[in-house]
């Protein structure tokens, strides 16, 4: 596991960076109390997944050719980028509305719908 630094850059390196970003985003979503912090966690998760798509579609990495995604990986990651932009716009509008109505961005205090 520790001979990664001596090997040429391959799919494994990219998958590990993507995994670290994904886990950081998941922990960020779970722990942050600021609603904007939760949004930043979502962005990190999407970027980790995006990195995996690009790595699977790349011709420049050491890898098993059976896992070749071709240019489809890049197109899917473009779709993910556009969806992330749309999601950020809507989520930010919701957060600003919540802030205007309740004058807080603490997600722990957004419990009015709780029975």
């Amino acid at each position: 596991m520790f001979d990664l630094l001596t090997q040429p850059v391959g799919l494994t390196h990219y998958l590990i960076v993507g995994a670290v970003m994904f886990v950081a985003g998941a922990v960020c979503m779970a722990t942050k109390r600021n609603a904007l912090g939760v949004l930043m966690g979502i962005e990190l998760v999407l970027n980790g997944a995006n990195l995996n798509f690009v790595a699977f579609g790349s011709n420049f990495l050491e890898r098993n050719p059976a896992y070749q995604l071709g240019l489809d990986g890049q197109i899917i990651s473009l779709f993910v980028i556009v969806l992330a932009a749309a999601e950020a716009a809507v989520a930010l509008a919701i957060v600003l509305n919540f802030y205007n109505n309740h004058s807080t961005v603490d997600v722990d205090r957004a419990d009015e719908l709780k029975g």
Partner: protein
Amino acid sequence: MRTGNGGRRMGEINGHTVLFLFFGILACLFSLAVVFSANVVRMAFYLILALAATSGLHFLAGADFVGTMQLVLYVGGTLVLLVFGVMLTAQNPFISLRTAGGDWIVAALVGGILLVILVPVAFQIGLPPQDAGDIEGLTQREAVASSEPVSVPTATRIGLGLLGVPGDDVSGYLLPFEIISIHLLVVLVGAAYLARAKRKVVVRQESQNSAGS
């Protein structure tokens, strides 16, 4: 963009490896900094740096168009939107909201379990095959992958794929492209509707009263 030719020799430090280590370590460090920073303004700044490092990784993987779009759309668009949100809501009690200790323990547990699952999978499927002689029976896409990579700009092929023209390593994506276009339009209209300035109802009632009297 480099061809993978120099990387085939084991144990050689070349420019690709050095740049990958630089951007990869930067991306991981700033992602972790987003998690462990309590100040929301610093979190936004670290997130910008992490996403910029990710676009560097995209360039290194040969995805020039996706890396450019990452810089333009994500760093230039989405994160500017997030920074605006931070600036609009950064009142004093909300800049650094502390998380309770129990939440940290549960989140660290879940994150550790995820990492323990994901990293062995990365090692399992990421390694190149031991015997490279078995080219027989490869599909055309796999043959493209196993041949020597050439540095061709991807923008033209991505654009043709989005217009529904299938190439040798890309399918047609016309219907998803149309769906995502309509989706983006609807989302922008909805966001503008949600974020619009509220009309003062009281003022209108007063004006009606004054008009009636």
